């Protein structure tokens, strides 16, 4: 059977509705875009205090008590770790160096624990600074070098 050839004229598709919808979608996504800086987490595992079963392990490192004293304005007035005080503009770096010297890079690193005992009125950013100082640092390549991974809070003080 002989098939007749068509006239060969182009079929014109009207693109206008599609372009309308596409631009509406584009506008929607541009307007709902929210640029936020990345957020990260510090993990803390804190079950409700239960009576300890048996005697504590004598080889286990006792938790380091980190005391954060607040000034009347809520800023951090003093940092005390195991009776040693840190002050000055580089106090968090000094605290980090001190914790690193205690924990070292040996097997004790996994067992090391810090208990943060902060004043009620202390501004929360100081607690995050303290957690940052004890939990590690960044190396030259921007990778996190972990130090103390077990962090807990002392029972809250009354306001």
């Amino acid at each position, binding site marked *: 059977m002989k098939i007749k050839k068509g006239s060969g004229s182009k079929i014109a598709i009207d693109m206008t509705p599609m372009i309308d919808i596409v631009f509406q979608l584009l506008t929607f996504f*541009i307007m709902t875009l929210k640029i936020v800086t990345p957020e990260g*987490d510090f*993990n803390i595992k804190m079950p409700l205090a239960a009576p300890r079963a048996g005697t504590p392990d004598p080889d286990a490192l006792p938790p380091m008590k980190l005391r954060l004293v*607040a000034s009347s304005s809520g800023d951090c007035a003093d940092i005390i770790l195991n009776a040693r005080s840190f002050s000055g503009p580089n106090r968090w770096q000094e605290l980090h160096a001190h914790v690193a010297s205690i924990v070292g890079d040996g097997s004790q690193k996994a067992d090391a624990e810090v208990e943060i005992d902060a004043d009620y009125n202390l501004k*929360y*950013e100081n607690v*995050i600074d303290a957690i*940052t100082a004890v939990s590690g640092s960044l190396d030259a390549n921007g990778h996190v070098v972990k130090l103390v991974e077990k962090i807990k809070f002392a029972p809250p003080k009354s306001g």
Partner: protein
Amino acid sequence: MKIKSANVEPVELDMTPMIDMTFQLIAFFMILINFDASEQDESIQLPMSTLAKPPDSRLETPITIQLTKSGQPIVAGQTYAEVASIKPILDNEKYVLESSNKSAKDATIIIRAHRDAKTGVVQEVIKLCQTVGFEKFTLRAKEEVGY
């Protein structure tokens, strides 16, 4: 003077490159869109930390509690007057978890507190969650570039 009307042919514009670009832009913005925005109250300025890196994987059962500068908790976009007011919500979350064969211990409480909030109030939130049965907490901070 008589002007001759030219034999005007309709100009055909090639729309293909523009449509290609537009679809690429849509795909780009679709990937970037953040549906978790309801859990990020703009009034809360998180503390900065160089170690606050975004987690590699999503938390399994996250419950976000935000805390304003004045110590008012925000849960699911709703602001409450005091910390104790969110206990019924936490009890409900625990009930929902238990009804899906999980427990409160499996859930992670994400605390997004304002950097100037009182530490004691943050600890009150943690204590309240502990009394309900939650054990895992993460303190959220904003990533700071450089030290």
